[in-house]
């Protein structure tokens, strides 16, 4: 006797219990603490903060632990938490020119005011597995070995693009006091202005933005980009308090900022000059910041009077509608939910079309005989 499928509720509870057990792993191995994740997996924490759009290293570390290291799942946890938070107001724009930099490099000038500061980078490491780490025998690293530069610089370091701008060689960015749109509070409507595009790119999936940027380098919407400046460091966050009538510092955040400088031979509307692409993300997330600045530049073809070559990175609707990994993964994975009803209706249609097609073949054969 057939009994209709039941037990969804018990199955879900059992699956959750199993998942919790798998998440913990072998209980003879010590559990990870949030502090350990925050301090030792800081780049994962940074990515979760950027794409989760919430600057909170502890919660990001918790999300990574709960998600078993699946960063997109962790980003999703942070987003779902963030969306329930009340909004008290907006900070003043952060002043990245006053950043206390730990890393600051320019690929366009050999030396420049403020100097090149390598900072903590993988760039010139040899990618050889360090088996000493596996043996958990880390050599203590003193401040002296890090070198003076590693202290970072507390003096403000001017933006590289400002030097170019003095000669009028790079486009001028008109400052605006307008309130930028917020795609977490308003539905995204196209065409989008640059502030909205930048917000979407910052929240966008690192892999997606990286591949799009890469595609522009390989010729799909080429923008000839150099890293004009990449800087990582801390900036103060200030907020106007209406009762006080002045801005107070409410905290400090670490940011990565990238300004790409792009060759531009001029268009019908713009003279030959260098143009800019911009990337700004939380924490030390420089791959994302650089990629973002390239995609930002590619998306600016219309305002610079360039031609649309049909490249994916130039296509605002394509980029903005598909950059969000929480949306993408949800819709992708939903196809594993039950679709009995749709499938049944397709089955029935196919059977009907088939039987008619078969009947037609039989009739043709009979006619031929």
């Amino acid at each position, binding site marked *: 006797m*057939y009994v209709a499928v039941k037990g969804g509720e018990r199955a879900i509870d059992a699956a959750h219990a199993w998942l919790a057990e798998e998440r913990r792993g072998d209980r003879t191995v010590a559990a990870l603490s949030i502090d350990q994740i925050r301090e030792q997996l800081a780049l994962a924490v940074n990515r979760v903060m950027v794409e989760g759009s919430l600057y909170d290293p502890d919660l990001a570390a918790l999300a990574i632990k709960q998600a078993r290291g699946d960063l997109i799942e962790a980003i999703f946890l942070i987003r779902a938490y963030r969306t329930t938070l009340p909004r008290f107001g907006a900070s003043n724009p952060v002043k990245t020119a006053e950043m206390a930099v730990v890393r600051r490099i320019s690929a366009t000038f050999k030396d420049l005011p403020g100097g090149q500061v390598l900072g903590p980078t993988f760039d010139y490491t040899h990618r050889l597995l360090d088996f000493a780490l596996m043996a958990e025998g880390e050599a203590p690293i003193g401040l002296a070995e890090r070198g003076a530069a590693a202290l970072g610089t507390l003096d403000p370091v001017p933006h590289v693009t400002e030097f170019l701008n003095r000669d009028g060689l790079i486009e001028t960015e008109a400052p605006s006091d307008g309130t930028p749109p917020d795609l977490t509070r308003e539905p995204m409507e196209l065409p989008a202005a640059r502030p909205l595009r930048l917000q979407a790119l910052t929240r966008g999936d690192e892999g997606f933005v990286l591949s799009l940027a890469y595609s522009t380098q390989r010729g799909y919407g080429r923008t000839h980009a150099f890293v004009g400046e990449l800087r990582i460091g801390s900036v103060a966050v200030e907020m106007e308090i209406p009762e006080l009538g002045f801005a107070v510092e409410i905290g400090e955040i670490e940011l990565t900022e990238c300004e790409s400088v792009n060759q531009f031979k001029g268009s019908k509307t713009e003279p030959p000059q260098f143009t800019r692409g911009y990337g700004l993300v939380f924490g030390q997330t420089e791959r994302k910041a650089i990629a973002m600045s390239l995609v930002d530049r590619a998306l600016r073809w219309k305002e610079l009077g360039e031609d649309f070559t049909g490249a994916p990175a130039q296509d605002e609707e394509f980029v903005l509608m598909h950059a969000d990994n929480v949306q993408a993964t949800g819709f992708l994975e939903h196809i594993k939910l039950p679709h*009995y009803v749709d499938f049944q209706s397709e089955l*029935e249609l196919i059977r009907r079309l088939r039987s008619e097609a078969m009947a037609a073949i039989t009739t043709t054969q009979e006619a031929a005989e």
Partner: protein
Amino acid sequence: MTDTLEAGAYNFAYLDEQTKRMIRRAILKGIAVPGYQVPFASREMPMPYGWGTGGVQVTAACLTPDDTLKVIDQGADDTTNAVSIRKFFQRTAAVAVTEATAEASIIQTRHRIPEAPLSEGQILVYQVPIPEPLRFLEPRETETRKMHELEEYGLMHVKLYEDIARHGHIATAYAYPVKVEGRYVMDPSPIPRFDNPKLAACPAIQLFGAGREQRIYALPPYTAVVSLDFDDHPFEASKAPHDCDLCGASDSYLDEVITDDAGGRMFVCSDTDYCRSRCEAGHMGRLGVPQQEAAE
């Protein structure tokens, strides 16, 4: 992963009141312009996009503490996702839940319209994956919005015509497009076309929520809804040519269940509440069992 929700950590029905107000505005606009897709600032929900976040947000915005909620997926109350969404509202809103269609004041559904007729005062909330009926003909939102503005639906008719030319039938089995009050072409969500006639002149309010795509649309009670067709190829609601093997119903949409590996199969109502209430009323299908026996 924990099943306890800190008391007071979240607002009634999860969403904060400002967000609900924003969603209610979108719903009211949708009701005022039947079939028009209203953009709304969809929030991240604690379940993934594609799992019914649009429907969940619409339900959350409509729920009051006195409501009785029914949640179905593929017509069934006990499929995993229906269970999960029902549990979510039990935890966050502590509303009464039911499986009986007639007892529910709000019904959230995925891919089906209940067999039992709905009544005035009820709200049917659909989960919608792709709200744009023209999306697979034109991928760009900027273009499709223009097409709706200009009532430029020729492309859709060409597609349906090509189906007939190629297959002899309109080869759309679910999410069959409809025209609302002679104006907007609307995607009824992926319900089988068997359900399309129930969209029209329905006494209940029908609300459609697409979370990922940030759209809400609506059919107010007693709206004229016509499935697109041609005079010489009229629309046909179709289903498997069988009766339910459990309750014997000949008028309900059926799921096909494979019962062994030798090609054995049976057909049962996809609407589990409809099937159960028919069985309880003494109806019996080919493989059904009398109620007393089943209880023993």
